[in-house]
């Protein structure tokens, strides 16, 4: 089958090109990942490492007056002061947890961009997955159910042939299907057989 092969090679060729692109890009991405991983170890460059840690902590904190922005990247004066505070505490040898606790004590839990996973907050993390999980179960169950009913009735060959959009006979499904699709799209209806 010429047509079948052609369409296959078109697909494979295009996918290979994409894959090559991805590999090329991934090399560059891997380099970024390496340089990210290497940075905290920069002992000699303690200033840069400290700024780095400061930014990371700051990005976990919500700027209290300019909501929607983190402490790390807000232009507001308060955020600037908070960044300085983080640096000061880091220089004094405080740990990340201690610094975050310091701000929680002053501003409340609201200052954390990721709410602690305790008590009521657990609901926040669990509900979406419960929602989707239950949805999938119900949907699958309903569909299995209809199929079981269907099997009892038994699908006759006639019935599947009456499908107008995509005939599924096993002669040469691919070509039949493509032509039918094409025909439908070209003429607005399936070919009459």
């Amino acid at each position: 089958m010429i047509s079948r092969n052609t369409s296959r090679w078109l697909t494979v060729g295009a996918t290979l090109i994409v894959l090559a692109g991805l590999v090329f890009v991934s090399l560059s991405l891997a380099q970024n990942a390496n340089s990210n991983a290497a940075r905290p170890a920069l002992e000699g460059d303690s200033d840069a490492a400290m700024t780095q840690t400061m930014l990371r902590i700051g990005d976990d904190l919500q700027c209290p007056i300019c909501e929607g922005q983190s402490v790390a990247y807000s232009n507001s004066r308060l955020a600037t002061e908070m960044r300085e505070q983080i640096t000061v505490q880091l220089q004094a040898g405080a740990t990340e947890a201690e610094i975050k606790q310091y701000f929680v004590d002053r501003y409340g839990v609201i200052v954390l961009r990721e709410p602690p996973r305790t008590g009521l907050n657990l609901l926040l993390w669990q509900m979406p997955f419960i929602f989707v999980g239950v949805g999938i179960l119900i949907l699958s169950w309903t569909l299995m159910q209809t199929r079981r009913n269907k099997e009892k009735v038994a699908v006759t060959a006639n019935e599947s042939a009456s499908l107008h959009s995509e005939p599924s006979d096993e002669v040469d499904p691919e070509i039949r299907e493509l032509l039918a699709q094409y025909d439908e799209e070209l003429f607005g209806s399936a070919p009459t057989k």
Partner: protein
Amino acid sequence: MPEMAFDFVNLGRASLIVAPFFAIYAIVMGPLGDRSGRHDWIASARNALYVVTALVMVATIALFYAFITKDYSVFYVYQNTRESQSLLYTWTAFWGGNAGSLLFWAAGLVIVSSIAVTTNWRTQYPLMPYVISVLMIIALFFLCLLVFVADPFERLDFVPPDGRGLNPLLRDPGMAIHPPLLLGGYMSMSIPYAFAMAALISGRLDAGWIRATRRWTLTAWGVLSMGLIFGSWWAYRVLGWGGYWGWDPVENVALVPWLAASAYVHSVIVTEKRDMLKVWTMVLVILSFSLSIFGTFIVRSGVVTSVHSFAQSSIGPWFFSFLGLILIVSFAILMARLPQLESRRKLDSLVSRESGFLFNNLIFMGIIFATIFGVLFPMISELVRGVQITVGPPYYNRVNGPLMLLLMALMGIGPLLPWRQATKKQLLRRFRWPMIALVTTAAVLSVTLRSFWPVLSFSICNFTLTTLLQEYAQGITARRKVTGEAWPLATVRLIGRSRRRYGGYLVHISIIFVAFGVIGSQFFNIEQGVTLSSGETATVGRYDLTYAGLTEGQTSQGAEVKSTLNVARNGRDWVDLHPGKIYMEGFEEQPVSNIAIRYGLVEDLYIVLTGWQEDSATFYVFVNPLVSWIWIGGLVLVIGGLISWWPEPKPQPVRSSRSLPSGLQPQGAGSGDD
């Protein structure tokens, strides 16, 4: 002394006061005319709708006029513009505050209403009385807000010499485009909603209303998509944290109507093609519209604050009541019509195109749920425990990230599933190459990247992309086989002949591009803060940045500080970049960053100047991989959207090639048993 005689501003205000009466007239007369068989009453209701449109347009022009003539006696003008603000941002200033953006909503709504009613007047005449009525109820709500709560024409009793001006963050091309697009998308959702309601009320539940509004839904969806993309672009260019999407409440409420509309665009295909899921499609129309109102409500009411909600006011309760009313009334009507909406057909199997669409809708619902839940959860926490919390990006990334990945996978699985039911053979044949692509990509990238989520994400992207490419390849080859056309012609004609399908696939490809950008920047970005004294060099990723000093200057908008960095890439001199800050007049306390961005296909270099001392300066340097693919994706999305939006050509008269397919059948049968 107040100005005498003809005053444009007063005319605008008068129009807004008169308009609600015409709206009420239309709301009543349409259905009344239908019930009593008085066609002249229905026509009269339509004319009232036109009058409302004209009046709101007069008000809109009046406000524009006030802006252009810089009439600072109008409080809204005083608030949103100033002498030093360029005329370009008059447009931005128009909806920069509450009153103006509500007027913008109302104006857009009446315009699209007029167009939709005029174009469907004959073909959908039985629906018209109720379409007019529903649209005018929505318009009435906004008009009431404009008259009673947020009057754009409110006058000061003196004339200030200069205005206060627009928030500097808003003075950016990205900001001039994206909010009107979002508002435009929101208000366009009114049209499908009005038609759906009209179909429910009048009991004409055939697919007529769906066909009449398909293009409107697609318009609303496309405009919302562009609004979101431009919004991200604005955030990327202006906010200076190296990102484009912060899962901030306003972004979230802008996203959810888009998600609902996306779900609707998909479910409607099943409704149209298989006459199924009618109730569900109705639910999605109602949901999309309600979420649009919810979006406007959250942005405009100040219930939640964020970087984007520049306007806060007391309109919260109004919106809340209106939203409640929409939901209760819509669902009540839907319930009443439930028996008539029952599908004649039932789903056949778990593995079929239909169920693919159903799972797609489920995931969309999951993302909508997670997002709204995240936005509202701080309020729940405060009510239940009295503890104020922040739900920030980590929640959304961790919850919505996997769900979106699932959706991406479904995007690749869906087109491979046949309608109704599939045989094992069919599935094997169709899934072969996409699965091979999935496995190969995973294998190859595991070597280079060595981390789970990015490899999985990229592999799923490539799986889906292969599915789509296969769809195109098969279509083109089949077409060539039948018509003998050359490759390019076959491609163009294939897309041209079934625009919805192949335009839709193009939109899917654009989503993959966006996903590439998101995955790349989410997992592989570098962010680093560096302080450099003159002549000092810092290394970030493959870039060496040498600080070469700072200059101060004056622009038309205010004082400007500009730094110079000599950038070398891979050790070789590359470019000079000039991150800086602007202190706009009247907003000196709130300087805006002039971010230096070098866009690239592989990665962007993004530098923000954050502070400086005498001989040194501090920069935030970001290396953001693949971000450009988000904007490219946006462009492709628009193209794909336009293709599927464009009206299909009329079915052509049967030509001689009509006999070809059956002529090929023997050949097909001969090699069928492989």
